[in-house]
Every structure is written in structure tokens, then in C-alpha cells.
């Protein structure tokens, strides 16, 4: 395929205040080509994709469409010129029918000025049939169909709106293996109809299957564009990380007999994960690593009673939990949980001390908690974790993200739990705050707490864990001792 590029970016730069997200990036997309964008979190993939789709309209550099310079001010404008985006979170209307979704905002109109349902349903059926989806009833609500089909409908809608270029952001994270196969076939069909696709994914092996060319971004720079057939998974990972990686796989963790297993999860299964079995011993930090959508966050939530599971069992310090339990039950039986969304887990408008003492209020005073005691407990806890400024009466919302996370962890210092589950503890923090927060997590483990850290950031997991459990597509794929492990090992397992 040596056709002229449909779309070309020339030395694109974009910065957010002090942060240089992209510098002088070149990128081109040929007709009928599937071009993958790879890179670590924060490498600039999302920024580039948003510029392509017209979401960001302020940037430096040139954007050429069919050789003509363009500058989109909105995604709508980009779509009008044939560039459509499929977001990771689908933007379909589940209550509307399949056909309505495909023609959202552009329903065919009959001569009487009403919606021409017959024509709409017929066209929808034809379009789906062209792609081999014969079993879909376009008159049924879209929500009756699995996510894979909903995604197909969104792709079709974008194409029917006139898109020649499709930008797909992590399209497979929530799909089952069979659905992924179908998506790959769909991409092949689109390729035959000369549509071009920008494909963004964490899964290197998947990229190797669908892409014609692969562009790797690192720290906001284009470090190279390679043809798929000239490349291997190892080469790509080296380019993504910017250094040579060893080809040898590390030894799997020996099923080390822990003298005191505090968290024992056996065969846990739900829709988002299956047969998750893991153990965390007293004083141990276990990393639960996976790409977004791997089911590790849902697993973490299940351990705190926030996500229903259908199979398997959770036991804490030898006591098996009931199938359905509340967060309150979990706390009372020694499980603590800190999630990544501080907005959801903290009371930002309320004083730090109220945030810290809330789970333990019944221990501070049966009916009337004493303010002095509360302040004493909270004061000690925030000094220990180093919240700055250390003033327990300040509202949490005034603190920086890192300090807020420290407050979330400081909660569990005074009355330590047996098991602490932390989800994505360092998202969006600078390096200094990250290492401080991770040190607190380690310190908590030193006290004899069993800590499980669920994260999609390999750095976080590597920095804090004794052992790493890797999940991919809802399953545990490997358990590794964290000795001389490198990022590439984790990325390969996704």
C-alpha cells in the first residue's frame, strides 16, 4: 500500500501549561491503512488522537487532509470532513433500537416530515448484513446486545456519518476474546472498503495482528514508525521503553508458603473476572497489575463488598466472608479500601480530621465522639504520613492530589486493618508525591498488614510490591516475584 496519505500531521506540538505533551510529532495515515499508536501511559497517544479528532484545537504544527491544510475547531467539524472517533466509553444510547442508534441525529425523513422507520430499519439491516451481522434485529433496543455489538453499531454510525478515517481508542479492553476476533474481522472489512484506521491499544500482541504500520510515542515524541512485518513484540517494547529488553521470561513465583495468609481469594468469578485466586500474607505487598479493563479493579472492589461476585470465596484471616457483604461488614472484619477516585472516597469540603475518623467513630465514642480525641488521632495520623500543611481542621479539598491520597491512607493508621486494598494509589501525581505515597503503603505493610495494590501503572506495581499478580482479560495470567523485574516483562503479559 503506497497510496498518498489521506491525513498527515507535521511537527505537531502541544503543551498544557508547563507540561509538554507532544513535541514535533509527525504522523501520516494512508488510505485503507490501519495505523497503530503505541506508547506508555502519558506518552502522548491520547493528546495526538484528540488533535486528530478535533477535540483539541490549540496546537502548533500542520494538519493536512488530502494534502490540504485544515484546522478543526470541534469533533463535529472533523466528522464533517470524514474523521470520526470511537471512544473507549461508547457513546451509544442503550434504550434506543439498533437502527435508531445507527441513524442518531440523521433519521431518514418521509415526505410527510415524519421519521421514515421502514427505510431506516431496512438500511440498518443492509449495512449490518454487509459486515456479516445477519442475526441482529435492528428493531430491538441496543442494550439487549453485548458490548461487542454495541461497538459495531457505533462504528457503523460513524461510517454512515461519512467517516473515512476512524480513530479507535483502546477498542478491545472490554471485549471478550470472541468479540475481539470479530472486531479484527470488521477492521479487515473496513480496510477493503478503503477506510483508514488509527488504532490505539495497550495490547502489543493485538497491535501486531491488526496494524499495517505502528508509530511509537515516548515522552511526547515520535520515536519511530515501523512496518508491522519488519517488527516483533520485543522490538516494539524496546522502542516503547527506550531501551533494550531481555528476551528471557522471568521465573514464575514459587507458591511460597506464607506463615500467615491474611487475604485468601479462591476462584473468584463475576462478569469482569474469572477464577481469580490469590493470597496475600501478613506484611506482604502484592501488586495486582493489568491493563484498564483487565478486571483487576473490579476484583479489588469485590474484596470490599462493592462488586458482586458469583463464584469463589474471600477469606480474611481464616474467616470466610458471606457471598454478599457490605463495605461496613468488610471494615468490621478487617478490610480497608482506598480507591483512586478521591472525589468518590473523600469528603472534599469537610475537615481532614472528619475524613480520617469517620470509619472509626464508634471506637472514639459510643454516642458522642470527643472532638479533642478526634483531633488527636487525626493529628497524629497526618503527621505520620506527612500531610502538608498538617492542620486537621482544613478541608481536604484544599490539599494537593498527593496530600489527599495521604489522607485517604492516613485513615487506616490509627486502627490498622488486617487487609488493605488500594486501587491506583498514585494516579496523576508527580514523582515526589508518588514515592511518598508508596512509602506509606510499604510502611503499612511493615506493620503486618496484608496489602493488595491494584494498578495499571507498571511503575507503581514494580516500586511497591513484593509479588506481582498479572491479570489480563479477567484472568490471572502469571504470578511473579518482584526481583529484578522490568516493565517489559509486565507489558508482555498483557
Amino acid at each position, binding site marked *: 500500500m503506497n497510496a498518498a496519505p489521506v491525513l498527515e500531521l507535521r511537527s505537531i506540538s502541544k503543551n498544557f501549561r508547563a507540561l509538554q505533551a507532544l513535541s514535533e510529532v509527525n504522523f501520516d495515515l494512508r488510505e485503507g491503512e490501519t495505523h497503530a499508536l503505541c506508547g506508555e501511559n502519558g506518552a502522548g497517544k491520547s493528546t495526538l488522537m484528540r488533535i486528530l479528532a478535533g477535540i483539541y484545537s490549540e496546537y502548533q504544527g500542520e494538519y493536512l487532509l488530502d494534502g490540504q491544510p485544515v484546522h478543526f475547531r470541534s469533533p463535529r467539524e472533523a466528522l464533517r470532513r470524514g474523521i470520526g472517533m470511537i471512544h473507549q466509553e461508547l457513546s451509544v444510547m442503550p434504550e434506543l433500537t439498533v437502527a435508531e442508534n445507527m441513524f442518531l441525529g440523521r433519521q431518514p425523513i418521509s415526505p410527510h416530515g415524519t421519521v421514515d422507520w421502514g427505510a431506516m430499519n431496512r438500511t440498518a439491516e443492509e449495512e449490518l448484513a454487509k459486515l456479516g451481522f445477519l442475526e441482529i434485529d435492528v428493531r430491538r433496543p441496543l442494550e439487549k446486545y453485548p458490548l461487542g455489538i454495541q461497538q459495531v453499531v457505533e462504528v457503523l454510525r460513524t461510517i454512515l456519518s461519512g467517516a473515512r478515517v476512524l480513530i479507535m481508542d483502546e477498542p478491545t479492553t472490554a471485549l471478550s476474546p470472541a468479540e475481539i476476533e470479530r472486531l479484527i474481522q470488521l477492521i479487515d472489512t473496513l480496510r477493503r472498503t478503503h477506510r483508514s484506521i488509527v488504532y490505539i491499544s495497550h495490547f502489543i500482541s493485538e497491535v501486531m495482528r491488526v496494524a499495517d504500520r505502528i508509530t511509537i510515542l515516548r515522552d511526547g515524541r515520535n520515536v519511530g514508525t515501523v512496518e508491522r512485518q519488519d517488527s516483533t513484540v520485543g522490538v516494539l517494547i524496546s522502542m516503547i521503553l527506550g531501551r533494550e529488553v531481555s528476551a528471557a521470561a522471568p521465573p514464575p513465583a514459587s507458591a511460597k508458603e506464607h506463615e500467615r495468609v491474611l487475604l485468601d481469594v479462591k476462584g473468584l468469578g463475576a462478569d469482569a473476572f474469572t477464577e481469580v485466586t490469590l493470597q496475600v500474607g501478613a506484611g506482604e505487598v502484592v501488586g495486582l497489575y493489568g491493563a484498564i479493563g483487565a478486571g483487576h479493579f473490579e476484583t479489588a472492589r469485590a474484596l470490599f463488598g462493592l462488586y458482586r461476585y458469583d463464584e469463589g470465596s474471600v477469606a480474611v484471616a481464616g474467616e470466610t466472608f458471606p457471598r454478599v457483604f*457490605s*463495605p461496613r461488614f468488610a471494615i468490621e472484619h478487617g478490610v480497608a479500601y482506598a480507591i483512586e477516585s478521591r472525589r468518590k*472516597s473523600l469528603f472534599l*469540603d469537610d475537615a481532614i480530621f*472528619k475524613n480520617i475518623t*469517620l470509619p472509626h467513630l464508634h471506637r472514639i465514642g459510643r454516642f458522642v*465522639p470527643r472532638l479533642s480525641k478526634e483531633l488527636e488521632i487525626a493529628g497524629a495520623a497526618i503527621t505520620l504520613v506527612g500531610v502538608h500543611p498538617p*492542620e486537621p481542621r482544613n478541608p481536604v479539598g484544599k490539599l494537593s492530589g498527593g496530600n489527599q491520597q495521604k489522607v485517604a491512607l492516613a485513615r487506616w493508621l490509627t486502627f490498622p486493618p488486617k487487609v488493605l486494598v488500594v486501587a491506583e494509589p498514585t494516579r496523576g501525581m508527580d514523582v515526589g508525591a508518588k514515592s511518598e505515597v508508596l512509602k506509606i503503603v510499604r510502611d503499612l505493610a511493615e506493620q503486618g498488614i496484608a496489602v493488595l495494590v491494584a494498578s495499571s501503572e507498571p511503575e507503581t506495581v514494580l516500586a511497591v510490591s513484593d509479588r506481582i499478580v498479572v491479570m489480563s482479560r479477567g484472568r490471572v495470567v502469571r504470578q511473579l516475584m518482584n526481583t529484578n523485574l522490568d516493565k517489559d516483562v509486565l507489558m508482555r503479559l498483557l
Partner: protein
Amino acid sequence: MNRSEGPVLEKEGSRKRRRAGARTWTERFTALAPLWTLLVLGIVFGFGSGGSFLRTVNLNNILIQSSPLAILATGMTFVLLTGEIDLSIAAVMGLTGMIAARLYLDLEIPEPWAVLVALLCATGLGLVNGVVSMRFRIPTFMTTLAMSMIADGLNQWVSGGKTIFQLSSLVQDIGSARIGGDDSLLRVMTAIAIGTLLVGLLVLRFTRFGRYVYMSGASKSAARLAGVNVNMVIISCLTICGFLSGVAGVVMAGHLGSALPTSIPSFLIETIAAVVLGGTALTGGRGSMFLTAVGVLIYETLRNGLDNITSINNFMKVFITGLVLLVALIVNVVFSGHRERDLA
């Protein structure tokens, strides 16, 4: 979160950072915006009425007129603080007075049992509001709306559509007797209202339950993550509100000297207005019992004050009340800093 108590960010390079946690005088001043509104209204009516407004008798009248509203508002504050609402208070109030009257008159149940059973019914209806809403995840807006029709319907059925004038002496005393002899200004109902507000204030301010109420309202998800049984807190608040609606019902029946076969619907909207005037956020988590009391007084002062200015056309009074309420609400929101922070 979109409520704030002061500035969100302290600008870099601002002068000496003030002692963290200490509130500035401006913040203290604006936090009490409803109180200043009440003072301004008092001054305006004091002058506007040519002295009749500020007479002791009239001021005491305001207290007396406020009493049923204050009791209702106490219950409503609990509910609104959790971010929920109870639309059944006026209906439950009417029903309770009627039950007490019928039990005493027709079933000849001696006092205080008739009143106590009636209060138990009101509490039970509040409990039903809470349990049904939480168990079936129906918004309290809907359940309590249904409950208001149920209670109204029960009232009509129990009363057979007739007003009852023969009340027990207990109910009459609650509604009209004075404490400390005939010359005393303090009415029993005023004492009940003040007592209710005071207990409510102490519970909200100092108890563990009070903290749970505020935190559940501020963020249900965060409260759950901290192990607070949010559903139980909401059920408790709706039960408290039911009970207090009942108390207000008995007080009102005594005050009117009769039990009516229909409720007085305006009590619902007046209660919500008074609580919100006090600065309690409809979204929950923010507000105080003290300011609820102030809100109730603002409302009654407004009504009473307009009656004392003879030059105002009677037909204009409702219009003016609405207008002043709107202005007072705007003032409260602007000056108490409850502005939207995050517009996303």
C-alpha cells in the same frame, strides 16, 4: 463536590498564609447570612410598622406562630441534610391530629395514650417512607409523595370528612396553655418547639449519628466507603421526620382547637422554604439546626411584618412574600459561599 466554604485555592505567592484552619472574619460573617437577613427584616418592619411590629406581644406572637413550623423544620433539616426529601410532612401532620382526636373521642382511649399512639403512627409512616425508599431504591421524592396521599386519604377516611372539635384537655393544653400562669408569655407549644430545635441541634452537632447524617449527605459513596450504613442513616432521618410531623400535628390540633379532616398543604412548602432559607443545601451535607431556626423566624417575621404594615394591599402580600423569599435566598447563597465550584 460543588459546595465550598471559602476559597478553593490559595494563590501562590499570597502574603503570609493565614493560620491554616482558622476562618477569617469575613467567612464567619457570611456563614451567618440568614441571621443578618433576619435582623434587617426586623429593622425594616420595626420602622415600617410605626412601632406595632416591635411590641413584645407581637414578637411573642411570631414565636407562637413559628412553633408548628419549627417542629416540622427540625425534622426536615435531618432529611435534607442527607440529600433526601420528605413531601409527606403536612399530610402526616394532619393525620396525627385526627388520630389522636378520634382515639380519645370515639374509642375513649385515655390520655396520654391517645396522643402517644397517634405519634407512634406518625413515626411508623416515617419508617415506611425510609424502608420502602431504601429497600426498593425509589427516590424519596416519589415515596414520600405517595405517602402524603396515603396519609391524606387515611385522614379523610378516619375522620369521615368531619372536623372534630372535642379534643382532650391534654391536646388543648399542648396547643394553647401557658407555662407559669395566665400572665406568662411562654406557651407550651413554643416550649416544645424550642426543645425540639435544641435536641436536634445537639444531636446533629455532637453525636456520632449527627456526623453520619452530615457525611452521608456530603457524599454517599464516600460515606459507604468509610463503612457508614448510609441507608440506615436515611431511614432514621425519615423516621425522625415522621415523628416530628406527628408532634407538629398534635400541637397544631391543640392550637386550632380542632382536628381537621384535611391537611394544610402549605405547611410542606413553608417548611422547605424555611429550612433552605437557613442555608441548608437541598443536595445535602451542609446546613445547621441553628440556622434552620433562623430560617423559620425569617419566614414568620416576613408574614407577621407584612400584616403589621397596614398600607400594604392584602392581595399583594403573597406576592411580596414570594419576592422577599427569592431575594433572601439569593443573598444567602451569594454570601454564604455555597456557590458552584466545579461546573463539570
